[in-house]
């Protein structure tokens, strides 16, 4: 296998190929039944071809072999030798998913024995498709579709025996047995003896998928007229799979091959088509929405990209180069000025002209640095479409499985956001969309009853607004049931009945974001959401994002996510506390008020204050950080809000705003609560950047008696 660095490059490039392949296949999928655009077919063919070449070059055989088979099919398709039917499109999409899953494993550097069988099976199906229906049936063995790799090792006699078995109409099976090196001979003999009464062991081959170092694997080709269950009963640990992929459908279980491997993951049976989802990296592994166990089960289940790479338009790099060229020019000017100043000598006043010139250069420097900063930020920007495309593909599949009639509308894919944010967004968005589909859109009968168009609608919209990006996930479903929310909230002890009565509708809806709200099964009765939404909120809070709900009974629900354009450079409010300086990300600062300490009240011995009729916790940052507190009559209170919560952070001084680049704290200090990193100011002093999300969480937790 290639060295890690080269492998990285491979993954990046293969990923790009797969993405373009996915786009084209998606169009093909949408235009089912129509004459495919020859250009598109060519593009797909080329993508498969490049992937084959690329993976062969890097020694990633698994991917290369599968891509090769796909290429064969596509070539035949391109030349009009095979028709483009549903089965072909489905197989190609499945191949794409498999390739993505394999690539994900490659990028993690792990082997994928669990995917092997599926990949083999897929290869075989592709091979068949490539051969086309017309010439199928020339050879009986071709007809039943035995893995050509396996066939190539059969002796003439074995092939003859196989043919005989096929003629008899007997089921052909592949028995995979893995035995320890110590006693495999006895084990194998025993297995043969057990199988014999049931049929004929045609051949015993060393498996093409070897076991681990201490064991050895065999593939037994076995012909038997018995039912699957009967054979399986005598296997004792060995696994059974059909050898043939095209026998009469009644003979074999509906999902041959991969069924064995995925049985555990697809036990929620009513969605048979999900069989690849759990491994394809497409993120649908949340088995049932009610589990709410978190968005990130494992890296496998995420829609995130496999690589950290950003593709950059050369124009943007040129702009950066330009800025740097101009900066160099300014540098030489400043050097000249410095030289002039040096020659004037000490004690002599510098000419006024010199000062003016220096000032001009300083201004130019500032402008150019701004440009450079903007340029670098631009490079980090990627279109949201990258994530939207994946979500679209996923939604089509989910819609098909759900059996609901739903239109999925996407717009604003060209809006650009920092790469980091786009990556982090994929999981929360997926969760919200899934929620819309599962709980938002009513079943067709209900919709008809309410005189709504039978076809539901789910929207995913993005637009830029100043320094923020708004993303909407909306549906025209049943909306949320306030009464139910109120009940659940009271039941769970998240709010008292009193409180819920006084809450505005918006506050009430926002209760679904509270952690304890959604963890139980009966939440799904709530005609709407509340499933794992706290996780969505937390994920967004990490991106300094806000989430808001708008829901109308009967008309549907819309979630609006507000996100900053970039995380790399942020504007921060600098505050002084007991002589220390801290930076508070401005994106989470709602407003600043001045509060007289005499106006403070306490609720359950915690200090609170009032702003425009709203009572908020008053948290002294000095106390949180255990610093000496100065006696004072007034404090500035920085109102910070993240997602749904608000608190007032009391500080001594306000020191203005700065653009800061947050740097992570050295590896050893990672776990400082309430601090997300540090930044350097003009005087090179390190200033800590507050982690508003963590602080809020800490301070609003019941146990934290911070006030």
């Amino acid at each position, binding site marked *: 296998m290639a060295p890690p660095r080269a492998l990285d490059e491979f993954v990046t490039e293969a990923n790009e190929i797969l993405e373009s392949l996915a786009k084209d296949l998606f169009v093909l999928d949408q235009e089912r039944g129509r004459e495919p655009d020859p250009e598109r077919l060519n593009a797909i063919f080329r993508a498969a071809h490049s992937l084959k070449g690329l993976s062969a070059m890097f020694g990633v055989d698994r991917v290369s072999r599968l891509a090769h088979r796909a290429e064969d099919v596509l070539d035949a398709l391109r030349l009009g030798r095979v028709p483009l039917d549903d089965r072909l499109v489905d197989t190609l999409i499945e191949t794409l998913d498999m390739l993505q899953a394999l690539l994900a494993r490659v990028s993690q550097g792990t082997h994928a024995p669990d995917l092997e069988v599926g990949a083999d099976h897929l290869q075989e199906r592709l091979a068949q498709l490539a051969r086309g229906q017309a010439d199928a049936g020339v050879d009986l063995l071709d007809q039943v579709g035995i893995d050509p790799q396996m066939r190539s090792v059969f002796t003439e006699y074995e092939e003859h025996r196989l043919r005989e078995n096929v003629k008899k109409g007997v089921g052909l099976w592949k028995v995979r047995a893995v035995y320890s090196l110590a006693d495999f001979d006895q084990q194998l003999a025993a297995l043969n003896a057990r199988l014999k009464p049931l049929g004929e062991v045609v051949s015993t081959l060393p498996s093409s998928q070897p076991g681990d*170092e201490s064991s050895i694997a065999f593939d037994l080709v076995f012909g038997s007229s018995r039912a699957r269950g009967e054979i399986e009963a005598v296997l004792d640990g060995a696994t059974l799979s059909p050898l043939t992929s095209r026998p009469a459908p009644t003979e074999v279980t509906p999902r041959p091959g991969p069924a064995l491997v995925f049985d555990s993951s697809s036990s929620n049976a009513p969605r048979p088509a999900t069989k690849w989802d759990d491994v394809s990296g497409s993120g649908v592994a949340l088995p049932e929405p009610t589990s709410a166990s978190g968005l990130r089960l494992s890296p496998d289940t995420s829609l995130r990209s496999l690589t950290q790479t950003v593709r950059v338009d050369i124009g943007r790099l040129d702009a950066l180069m330009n800025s740097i060229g101009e900066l160099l020019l300014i540098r030489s000017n400043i050097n000249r000025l410095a030289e002039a100043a040096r020659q004037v000598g000490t004690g002599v006043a510098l000419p006024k002209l010199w000062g003016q010139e220096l000032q001009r250069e300083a201004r130019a420097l500032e402008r150019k640095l701004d440009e450079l900063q903007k340029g670098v930020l631009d490079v980090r920007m990627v279109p949201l479409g990258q994530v939207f495309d994946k979500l679209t593909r996923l939604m089509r599949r989910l819609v098909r499985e759900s059996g609901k009639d739903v239109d999925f509308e996407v717009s604003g894919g060209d809006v650009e956001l920092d790469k980091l944010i786009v990556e982090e967004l994929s999981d929360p968005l997926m969760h919200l969309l899934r929620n819309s589909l599962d709980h938002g859109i009513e079943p067709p009968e209900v919709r008809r009853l309410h005189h709504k168009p039978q076809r539901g609608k789910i929207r995913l919209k993005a637009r830029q607004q100043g320094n923020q990006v708004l993303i909407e996930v909306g549906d025209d479903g049943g909306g949320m049931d306030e009464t139910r929310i109120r009940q659940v909230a009271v039941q769970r002890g998240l709010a008292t009945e009193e409180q819920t009565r006084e809450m505005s509708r918006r506050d009430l809806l926002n209760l679904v974001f509270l952690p304890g709200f959604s963890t139980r099964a009966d939440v799904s009765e709530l005609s709407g959401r509340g499933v794992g939404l706290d996780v969505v909120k937390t994920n967004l809070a990490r991106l300094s994002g806000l989430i808001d709900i708008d829901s109308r009974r009967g008309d549907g629900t819309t979630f609006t996510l507000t996100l900053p354009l970039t995380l790399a450079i942020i504007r921060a409010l600098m505050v002084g506390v007991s002589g220390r300086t801290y930076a508070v990300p401005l994106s989470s600062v709602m407003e600043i008020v001045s509060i007289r300490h005499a106006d403070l009240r306490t609720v359950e011995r915690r200090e609170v204050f009032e702003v425009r009729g709203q009572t908020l916790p008053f948290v002294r940052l000095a106390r949180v950080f*255990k610093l000496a507190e100065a006696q004072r009559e007034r404090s500035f209170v920085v109102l910070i809000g993240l997602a749904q919560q608000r608190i007032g952070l009391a500080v001594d001084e306000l020191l203005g705003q700065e653009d800061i680049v947050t740097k992570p*704290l050295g590896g*050893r*200090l990672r776990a*400082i*609560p309430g601090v997300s990193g*540090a930044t350097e100011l003009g005087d090179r002093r390190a200033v*800590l950047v507050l982690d508003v999300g963590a602080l809020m969480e800490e301070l609003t937790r019941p146990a934290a008696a911070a006030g």
Partner: protein
Amino acid sequence: MSRFAELLDRFFYRPDEDVGAFLELAPEVDTGPEVAPEEVPEEFLAFQLGDETYAVPIATVREILKVGDVTEVPRGAPNVIGLINVRGEMLPLYDVKVRLKLADAAPVVRSRADVARGARIVLIRDPEGDAGVLVDRVHGVVKLALSRLESAPNLGLERDAVAGLGRKDGNLYILIDLEQALS
């Protein structure tokens, strides 16, 4: 060695081929306290902490800095003095005196004014993340032969951060195990 090779080795191992026992009897093997003539002494950076002289392998030292501004880290570990900005990199500054029982509490250092004139920050390379260690004075590089190092005497004190003792020209150098000292 791959796991497989290891398995093979174990499989083919024959006790009668093992020469380990004979090596000890072989005359040219030097097991005495004498330094083998070809031994190249290792270089250590020696510095002062309190009244004692300590040393760390020079390879683990990234650089030596003067004390500049130190940013206090609220609610940090007790041995963290603060955060220093090393050319844009934010690194923790540690106190090891408490760990070595040379002081009762980490000093409060916020700028150069809070330390003695000779005080320096020894920047340590560490896979867990580089870190600064505040020392009272840096002495310089000292060469110590590894084979001559003594293990730390048992003084009834819990000083597990001491890796050993080295002696040269009448000076005693205490080698610190930084892993332990910073934990």
